[in-house]
Structure formats: structure tokens, C-alpha cells
């Protein structure tokens, strides 16, 4: 449906400050306009919340040199194309596209408006004015997976995931590998929601997994604490992504895989102001501060905790890589040989699941 809560009142402000069509490099006095497009509502927690936190960091750092226009809850497809077009024609200098599914419309728009810069989340297309950014969430997934491997008693980890895009497949794999690195009998199962936003279905999926024997739940990119509250209610451990959800599961949160875009957004916006924008791929991990593990549960023993924290430190200084061989996939094929690690390109295009995941990829 039509959800542009902030667009209409800010359009008036835009007309006063924006150049016609594409923007020329802003002079020191002209604030640049940044359009933010989120795939879901920016609530208290979640993917869109962290994108919005990035926006706030930009406004704090750059003050009145930037004007922001935020459009939330834009579904992928024709609605997204329309919103992007609207932002472009209303004079945005930089457009932040917050979801993988905005990629095709975004790149087409970037070709039409070479003067507008774009940063796109989780995609793989690039152009001179089209950069993308991703998290190495698999790093925190591996560490959190170790914690899960320690606490699981049924050796059954349930995962609630939206779509089988490479980023999510990477998370599933890293989590499973982490769990099995400390507990070789651990296995995982996945329920695919086929929707980026359906809290009811996410809750039902969590309950279904729990009823089938999962005693640790991994909630992948759920923007509401839906799965986390169900886990707390049913008394099973839960790991979630994007934001710290300790407040929603004070007893059973095992870890939160925190994302932080502040530094990256500020740097990119500054590059637009300085006219040094590059269409590069940012792959932010623990070392860049883009990804971290928060609220590690106090139920872990001192030894277990020390192991997980050592892993985190080792990943941050690159002495350990989560995708280090030997890694065997579901069909028994060795995907990564002993001693080798997967390179970034292979991680970003991952379309296979590791041995230990019981669910197949949807065709």
C-alpha cells in the first residue's frame, strides 16, 4: 500500500534546497540531500532500525550539511522503483537503498542519473555511482554459533530465515560451522518465511521448530522481536541479528549479532560532499566495527565464554576465518579444502549449505 509518512511534508523543504534533476557537486553552503529507502518500518530494533541509526549518525556528524528524506516500509518491486524515481527527480544527491531486492531498479536508475550517487545494501552490482555495502555477519554468526553449540542439549538448532539469498545462506552456514566446531553433533534446520516482514509467521515458525525439538533458535533478519519473545516464552535460547534484543528476552537471549553502519554512512556521505565518491563494495566485519556480538549470555560457563570471546578476537584480527576448510556441503562434496579459506566472491555468491544443515535450499 502507500506508505510515505515523511515524504510529503519534506517535499516542500526539498523544493527549497534541491537543484533541478541531478545535483551538481554541492557548494560548501548547499546541504546535500540524502534519500533513505527502507524495506520495513524502522521500529525500536531490527535491520531498518540500524539503517536509521546510520542516518542519525550522519546527521550528528554533518549537521546542516545534509538534509534527509526517509521512506520506510517500501516493498521491493514497482513501489520501490516509484519511490526511487521520486527521490531522484526531487533532487537527491545520494540515495541509500536498504534491501537486496532494490538492486535491479536501483542500478537502472543509477545509469539514468549519473550525477546521483547510490549506496545499496546486500547486493552485487556496482557502477561508478553505485556502491554497495554488506556485513560480514557471518563472523558474528560463527561466534554465536559456538555459543549455541555449547548450550544446546538436543543438538538441534532451529533457524527462521526469510529468503535463501547468499547473505542468509552464509549466515546459516557460519552458524552451523561455529556450533559444530565445539559440538560436532549439532545440526540445524531452517524454515523459510518467503517474506521479509511477517511477524506472525515468524512466531509460528519458531513455535513449530521448538515443537520439533529445537532448543536454540537463530532468528535471521527479523525486524521485530517476534521470534525472540516466543523463545523467551517457551524457554529456549535465541540468537538474533541486527540489534541488541536483550530487553525482549532477558533470560534466554544467547547473543545478539549487532550491526553498526555509522562509520560507513558518514564516510560515504562525506565522499559525496567532497565529490570523491567511488562505486566500491564495502564488506564490513568485526575489524571495521560494522559487526559485533552483544549481550553474550551469562549462562555460559567461564570456559565456554572464554572460548567464544577468543574466537571473536581471533576473527577481528584475521587470525581465524570462519570459512576455513575442510568444509563439506550437504551432498558430501568438499567445497573448501583443508587449510584453505573461501574468498569474498565465493562467500557473497554462496548457494550451498554445509553438512549439518538438515533443510535443503528452496529451488
Amino acid at each position, binding site marked *: *500500500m*502507500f*506508505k510515505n*509518512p515523511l515524504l510529503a511534508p519534506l517535499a516542500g523543504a526539498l523544493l527549497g534546497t534541491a537543484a533541478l534533476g541531478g545535483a551538481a557537486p554541492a557548494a560548501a553552503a548547499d546541504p546535500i540531500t540524502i534519500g533513505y529507502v527502507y524495506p520495513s*518500518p*524502522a*521500529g*525500536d*530494533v*531490527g535491520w531498518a*532500525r540500524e539503517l536509521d541509526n546510520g542516518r542519525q549518525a550522519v546527521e550528528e556528524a554533518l549537521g546542516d550539511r545534509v538534509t534527509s528524506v526517509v521512506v520506510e*516500509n517500501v516493498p521491493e518491486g514497482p513501489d520501490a522503483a516509484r519511490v526511487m524515481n521520486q527521490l531522484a527527480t526531487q533532487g537527491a544527491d545520494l540515495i541509500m537503498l536498504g534491501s537486496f531486492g532494490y538492486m535491479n531498479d536501483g542500478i537502472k536508475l543509477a545509469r539514468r542519473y549519473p550525477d546521483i550517487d547510490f549506496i545499496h545494501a546486500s547486493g552485487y552490482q556496482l557502477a561508478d555511482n553505485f556502491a554497495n555495502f554488506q556485513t560480514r555477519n557471518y563472523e558474528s554468526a560463527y561466534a554465536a554459533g559456538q555459543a549455541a553449540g555449547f548450550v544446546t542439549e538436543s543438538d538441534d538448532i*532451529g533457524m527462521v530465515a526469510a529468503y535463501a539469498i547468499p547473505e542468509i545462506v552464509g549466515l546459516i552456514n557460519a552458524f552451523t560451522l561455529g556450533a559444530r566446531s565445539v559440538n560436532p553433533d549439532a545440526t540445524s*534446520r*531452517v*524454515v*523459510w518465511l*518467503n517474506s521479509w*516482514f*511477517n*511477524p*506472525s*509467521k515468524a*512466531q*509460528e*515458525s519458531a*513455535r*513449530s*521448530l521448538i*515443537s*520439533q*525439538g529445537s532448543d536454540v533458535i537463530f532468528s535471521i533478519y527479523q*525486524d*521485530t*522481536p*517476534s521470534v525472540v*519473545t516466543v523463545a523467551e516464552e517457551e524457554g529456549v535460547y535465541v540468537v538474533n541479528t541486527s540489534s541488541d534484543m536483550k530487553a*525482549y528476552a532477558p533470560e534466554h537471549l544467547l547473543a545478539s549479532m549487532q550491526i553498526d553502519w555509522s562509520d560507513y554512512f558518514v564516510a560515504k556521505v562525506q565522499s559525496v560532499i567532497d565529490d570523491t565518491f567511488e562505486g566500491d563494495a564495502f564488506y564490513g566485519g568485526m575489524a571495521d566495527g560494522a559487526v559485533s556480538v552483544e549481550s553474550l549470555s551469562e549462562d555460559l560457563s567461564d570456559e565456554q565464554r572464554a572460548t567464544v570471546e577468543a574466537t571473536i578476537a581471533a576473527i577481528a584480527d584475521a587470525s581465524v576465518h570462519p570459512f576455513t576448510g575442510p568444509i563439506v556441503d550437504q551432498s558430501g562434496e568438499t567445497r573448501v579444502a583443508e587449510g584453505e579459506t573461501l574468498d569474498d566472491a565465493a562467500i557473497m555468491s554462496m548457494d550451498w549449505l554445509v553438512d549439518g544443515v*538438515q*533443510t*535443503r535450499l*528452496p*529451488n
Partner: protein
Amino acid sequence: MTESLAFLLAGTLAAATPLLFAAMGEVVVEKSGVLNLGIEGMMATGAVTGFVIVAQGGAPGTALAAGALAGALLSCVFGALVLVFLAHQVAAGLAVGILGLGASVQIGKAFEGRTIAPIPRIDLGPLSELPVIGRALFGQTPMVYAALVSVLLVWWFLNRSRAGLVVRAVGESPSAADAIGYPVAWIRFAAICFGGAMAGLGGASLTLAYTPLWADGLIAGRGWIVVALVVFGAWRPGRILLGAWLFGAVSLLELTLQGIGLAIPSQLLSALPYLVTIAVLAIISRDPRRLRLDQPVSLGRTHVPRA
């Protein structure tokens, strides 16, 4: 395995509850001859109203009543459009539905993503602990039982009460009812308000008992499922109950099957609840003579009152 079965049974009854409330409201509205397609919006306004009240410290009972009231108020807009201004029912319903969805987002803006404590499930001690059926039959929230009671009440109302007969008469032939002297517009208006209130109640039960959080899009198309249930269930409360259970069961089965690891494409599984429910209901209700008896003849047609 028994755990999965217990989950399926309990979950089906719980998942069907919001659908049943709204469907019972809609069946009365459609039996009176009005096609209300704005259920999604009415459920959304009911849901957000109920949620906001509990989030600010109100009692669940107040919240449910407020949710019903919110749905009823929105349906008054629809009623005015259709009965006073004689607008096209389909268009008016869709417009009011979209209005309701937008209004719910606006009202709930400050509460986006929040969670509340849900209405607790009843606990009958050993009865609730029975294997497989314990939680399904004796461990549900009160809303589940209320929904089942509402099905009985609506069935009794439509088929065994004088008032229900009048409503059905208005739906079959409003001009004949008008000629006899029944106030067709008022009867339809009352039915519309009832439908709106039930839809609001269904939405409120969703946010207060089933998924105790608010987010834009929480209703997730349930309003449309309700319309389909009423139509494919041949406007018979019993069939609609079956359809709601079937839909809920297949939806949850889809998740269970995924968890087991069967190699059925998840997209197909996602479509399965809709396909199965429509297919089963359509097959059951395929007798054309019986269908002619059940379908309100004037459904969707604007009735111009005698001058």
C-alpha cells in the same frame, strides 16, 4: 512427533480465531446483501486500537471492546458510502479498507515494533496437560473459545431467529422487504456495524493474543482470506469454520514440513494454504441448487430505497 501434532492442533485453533471473528461478521453483512471488502482495514484499526490501549496500561477487556468499536466506526464510513450515497459496494469497500490500513499505521506509529504481554492462556491443570489434545482443547486463550461461541451464535441468529430471517430476507430481495415495510437501509447498516465490530475484534485478538506486537502489515492479508472463506464457504457458518481451520492447519503444516526437511519448494508450500482451502470449500459447496439457496441474491447490488 506428538509435540508436532500438539503444536499443529493448538496452533490451528489459535490461528483460526482472528479469521473466525471477522468471518462471522462478514457473513452477516453479506447475508444482508452488502459486499464489504474493507475487512483488512477494519481488522487493522481494531488491532492497533486494542494494542495501543494495552501498551498504555489498559485492561485487555477494554482493549478488545475498543478494537471492536474502532472497527465499527470505520464500517460506519463504509455504511454511509454504500447506503446513503449509494456508492458501488466493491469500490467503497476497497477504499475504506485502504483508509483503515493507512489510519492504523498512523495511529500505531509511536508503537511500531513494540511488544506487550499477551492475554494469558487458560490453565485447567491436568486437562491442559493431556498429550496432543491438552493444549489444543483446554489450554487456549479465551479468545479461541469466544470465536467458537460466536460461530454458534451467528449460525443460530441467521438460521433460527426472527431477526436473522429479516436480515436474510433483505439480502434475498431488498425490494420485497422494502415493500413489506422493513427499513432495508437501517437493517443493512446494523449488519455493517456488526461486521465492522467483529472484524475489529478479530484484529484486536490478533495483536492481544496471537502475535502480541504491533507492526505495519501485521494483518498480512487475513482480511482477504476472510472474504474468500465466506464466499467459498457458501455463506454457511459451519463451512466457514471448517475453512478457517483448514487454512490455519495447512499454514502451520507448511512450517512443520519445512522443519522436517522435505524437499518441497517452500514457495509452493507458502501457496498451499490458499490453494487447499479454496479447493476443498469449492468442492464441498459445488451443488448449484444448494448454492442458489445459500447465496444472497442481492449481494453487491445497490438497493435504491423507494422514494
